């Protein structure tokens, strides 16, 4: 085995070009980190919004207890439904008065309670498709005792669908980005080693075995990859710690931002993987 010191010496002899590839790998991994952070947070927000979207069934004043129970059972058994709660006429009026706050006195002249009782249905955000919601609404409307079914304002639907779409798009983008960054890193190592194919050939002519030839390149690739990963980690730490902490007050969204620090620990590992396997692939099969 060629001694590892010579791999380090080789790196040092060509330090500028090696530094450049370290930076290149570092930038790739940093972009990946930031993208992961964005997608992670998108998922986090999306899960926070879970169950926020509701459907309301207005009930006939004269609905019978069995009809009500049957209706509640039918709704609960629907897979798109998260929870169902009963709002009485009195509760509805109290709610309306509360929502009008100081203007509640306006209702004082009111003769009786004109508001209907209702069932408040929380939908499972992820699972409830448009078609399912419409189907459920039609099903309930056909039941005895239901006066009207009202569901999600168009606007909320849009926001919800945008966020859910952005989440899928984000994941797809992340997958593509991962592939892209891996490719670019591989290609950096490949181009870096390409000019040393003479060295590979010479080592072969001197009688070195394939693994003897590969060893210093694998060490070099690994060192470059880990260095790139550490660079990305350092940049990531700076963003997490300095930037996010400093700017959290200025931009409201950063207050809600989740920063999983273990991502940082993964980067040097990813760098090692990229550097090692990149070097292995860059060398390819060694011909004799």
């Amino acid at each position, binding site marked *: *085995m*060629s*001694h590892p010191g*010579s791999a380090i*010496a*080789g790196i040092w*002899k*060509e330090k500028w070009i090696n530094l450049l590839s370290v930076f290149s790998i570092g930038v790739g991994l940093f972009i990946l980190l930031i993208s992961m952070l964005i997608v992670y947070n998108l998922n986090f927000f999306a899960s926070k919004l879970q169950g926020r979207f509701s459907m309301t069934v207005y009930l006939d004043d004269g609905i019978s207890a069995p009809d009500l129970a049957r209706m509640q059972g039918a709704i609960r058994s629907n897979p798109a439904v998260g929870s169902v709660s009963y709002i009485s006429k009195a509760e509805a009026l109290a709610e309306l008065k509360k929502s009008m706050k100081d203007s509640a006195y306006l209702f004082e002249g009111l003769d009786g309670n004109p508001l209907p009782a209702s069932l408040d249905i929380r939908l499972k955000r992820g699972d409830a498709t448009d078609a399912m919601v419409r189907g459920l609404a039609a099903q309930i409307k056909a039941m005895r005792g239901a006066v009207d079914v009202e569901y999600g304002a168009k606007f909320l639907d849009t926001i919800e669908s945008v966020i859910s779409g952005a989440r899928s798009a984000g994941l797809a983008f992340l997958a593509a980005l991962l592939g892209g960054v891996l490719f670019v890193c591989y290609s950096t190592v490949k181009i870096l080693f390409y000019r040393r194919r*003479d*060295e590979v050939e*010479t*080592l*072969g*002519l*001197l*009688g*070195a*075995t394939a693994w*003897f030839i590969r060893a210093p390149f694998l060490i070099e690739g690994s060192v470059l990859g880990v260095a790139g990963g550490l660079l990305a980690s350092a940049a990531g730490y700076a963003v997490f710690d300095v930037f996010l902490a400093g700017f959290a007050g200025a931009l409201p969204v950063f207050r809600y931002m989740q920063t999983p620090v273990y991502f940082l620990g993964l980067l040097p590992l990813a760098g090692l993987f990229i550097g090692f396997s990149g070097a292995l692939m860059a060398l390819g099969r060694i*011909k*004799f």
Partner: protein
Amino acid sequence: MVRFENVSKTYDGQQALSGVDFEAGRGELLFITGASGAGKSTLLKLIYRAIRPDEGTITVNGAAINGMGARHVPGLRRSIGVVFQDFRLLSGKTIYENVALAMRIRGAAERALKPQVMETLKMVGLRHKADCFPDTLSGGEQQRAVIARAIVAEPVLLLADEPTGNLDPDTSAGIMRIFKDINARGTTVIIATHNRDLYTGTGRRIMRLASGKIERLDVG
């Protein structure tokens, strides 16, 4: 040690060797000469299997190397020391490291290696250049570094391709003395050269190539 039987080699369209038959016995010191482009380097490259013949059989140290599997090629090459015409020094390593490499490839222990490398560098007059990189050496110094790398591991077969092309007559004579010493200790030596001073008066066989064929066998 080395036997060629009806060996031919064509580089896409360019005939470099045709129907070459010869044998270099164990312990022999053989010279190959001939005009520029006659096929000397091609013949040597066939021996260490840098290239393969189109036709014919090549036997090195008792083994037919035509059909030799890739697995056995490094072993073959480790039994041979080569002075490449185009040097092939690794530019990222010092002269010491370049020479030591030949021993590391042969599995020499780090401790055993240093005295032998320094001794060989001294023989070729490069001890003071041990820590220099190849691109800071003069042409002749680089050539001597290549010679040191070829002989340091005491191969059973030494192939030298134009080993004195960049050396002055005195230094050339010194190198030739080294080759003769090595040969005297049992190593088969084949030297491709155009330098008449190397072989005149040696009493050794000289194989003259012309356009890829053996034109003549002389004795120097």
